């Protein structure tokens, strides 16, 4: 039995796209595309692929034009899942796509499509949760600051939303889990690696706003309808640690005499 081959990319999305490009130059085509942290199998021959922006761009364009923008989005989001086998999953998905073109996104019962879609939807769900639950605070420097601890590194998916709607204020969203920061200076935004963000010094007004929001949050609930399970279903507990209303100490309720 001859050894099967696999390609190894550097862990970047461009690296994976380059590896997919290289795969098409080999006969037989490799069985897997993995990255340095993945588990290696006995009897498999591994070959490193050097990331090449031009090759990656050709594959990117190929996916977009032949399979459609939705297929590319799914592959990109599935990549952000950081699943240890993401390279192989996306490779198989894209190979199928080069065969069946626009039919790829309709093949909702094909395991290769289901796998990628499932990972993509986990990532998309996390991103949409963060659009809901990110909380920004005003610091002494005038820059608004937010800390998040998501399971997946979704900053590239959420930054454009905040940059658009909060375009009149500078802000930083720091992803503590993945040590990444999204920085917006009021004109443009960048994504950067950040080992440790400075603990921010909040303004006095910020402390007042946290209290106001906590008061609103506690008051707006209807006592006769209290339903913690329902709340948790919509607002998973893992987000609470970064949310003002779930961490701030409640104030007394002098106005209502409670």
């Amino acid at each position, binding site marked *: 039995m001859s050894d099967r081959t696999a390609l190894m990319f550097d862990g970047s999305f461009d690296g994976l796209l380059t590896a997919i490009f290289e795969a098409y130059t080999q006969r037989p085509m490799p069985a897997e595309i993995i990255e340095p942290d993945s588990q290696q199998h006995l009897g498999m021959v591994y070959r490193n692929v050097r990331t090449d922006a031009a090759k990656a761009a050709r594959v990117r364009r190929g996916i977009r034009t032949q399979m459609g923008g939705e297929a590319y989005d799914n592959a990109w989001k599935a990549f952000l899942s950081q699943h240890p086998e993401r390279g192989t999953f996306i490779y198989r998905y894209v190979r199928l796509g080069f065969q069946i073109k626009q039919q790829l996104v309709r093949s909702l019962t094909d395991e290769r499509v289901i796998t990628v879609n499932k990972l993509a939807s986990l990532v998309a769900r996390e991103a949409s949760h963060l659009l809901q639950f990110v909380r920004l605070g005003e610091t002494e420097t005038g820059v*608004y600051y937010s800390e998040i601890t998501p399971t997946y590194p979704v900053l590239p998916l959420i930054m454009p939303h905040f940059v*658009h709607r909060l375009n009149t204020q500078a802000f930083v969203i720091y992803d503590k889990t993945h040590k990444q920061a999204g920085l917006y200076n009021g004109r443009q935004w960048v994504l950067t690696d950040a080992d440790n963000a400075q603990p921010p010094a909040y303004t006095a007004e910020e402390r007042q706003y946290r209290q106001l929001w906590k008061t609103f949050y506690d008051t707006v609930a209807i006592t006769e309808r209290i*339903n913690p399970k329902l709340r948790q279903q919509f607002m998973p507990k893992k987000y609470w640690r970064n949310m003002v209303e779930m961490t701030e100490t409640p104030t007394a*309720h002098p*106005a209502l005499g409670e």
Partner: protein
Amino acid sequence: MDIMQKLEILTDSAKYDAACTSSGSDRSPVAGKLGGTCAPGICHSFSADGRCISLLKVLQSNVCMYDCQYCVNRRSNDVPRASFTPRELADLTIGMYRRNYIEGLFLSSGVSGTPDHAMEEMIRTIRILREEYGFRGYIHAKAIPGCSPEAVELLGRLVDRMSVNIELPSEQGLKTFAPAKTKQNILAPMRHIRDGITQSKEELAVYRHVPKFVPAGQSTQMIVGATPDTDRQILRLTEGLYKQYGLKRVFFSAYIPVGTHALLPKNTPPPLLREHRLYQTDWLLRFYGFSVDEIVDEEHPSLDPFLDPKCAWALRHPEYFPVEINRADKETLLHVPGIGVKSALRILRARRVGALRPEDLKKLGVVVKRAKFFVTCNGRRLPDAIDDPVIVYRHLAELSRPELKKAASPMEQLTLFPTPNLPTGEDVMACLTGQL
């Protein structure tokens, strides 16, 4: 009084309003201006009762000259009173928006003085937001019953959504509990808003830059369980509002006993299950192509508490089933229990590539344990599909009310299932519906 106390009082006064969505408006952000909206809306938090918090929901003022018996702000109720100045409230909204606490403002008001005076204060607040701060986030404002068409016109150009609360599902209920409000002064502003929206659409076809009037449409809310109206009356009214007033949403609010009037229910838990069933039906009306008459009729004026309304409908209509997954059109698929809007679209998409088999349904997001009784795939029934309607009823009821499973014996289980609670004669009360 400081801003914290005002916020507390005016939130407490506003919290019984059910509507808190920020949907229906898609205003992309503009460089140099704060905010934007996105069509599906965004819920920024969920309060301890599990309800979504999307907007800062407060009253401008809870001082009110009316004495509506179901309302916590009625004149005769002993609660602390407060009013925001327009400046205070606009600043508060901006501060919260910048922190991503909210999508915008949901503003209503008690009526001190004339309805138009209450509207003027609200308009002043919203003008500061829109004109001074250039705020492009979501604003939902209540039109005060009895206000002038001019006030509606002015407010409508500033907000995304406007609503007038129907309050109670029947005219009789209004007469008893809100004598100062009449059907007429509720419906009049609703008509103004409807006509304003129609006119605005025509204008936009001609001039591109006129400000849109209530772009996210109008909504309303009614209180359920304060009056003896049946589900059928409530739903027919709802359907009439969608069809004849072009409403975007009708909200239901389970009555919480805040009033003391002799005819109002006291010490009763809010009818949450009933509210839930009404919302399920509302979805069937808006997204699934059902009509009210299919779901409730003169003989069955109440929704089945044990089954969701689509399952209940399916069991009454065996002639409609089984539905063939590989050939049925979208509307037919949407009538199948266990198939929602998303899974119907996935079925339509996936079957263009190849015929679907029973084992594919789960992959497409179909809830197979519900759907299995009602579908075929290329003529094949699904494994363990049963035909006996009594047994199917029990299976489906257990799925929607798992606590029923705990009942000891099968006999006991059977008796748990009701013959629906039918009032002996149609209530004499004239539902607003008939007249809409």
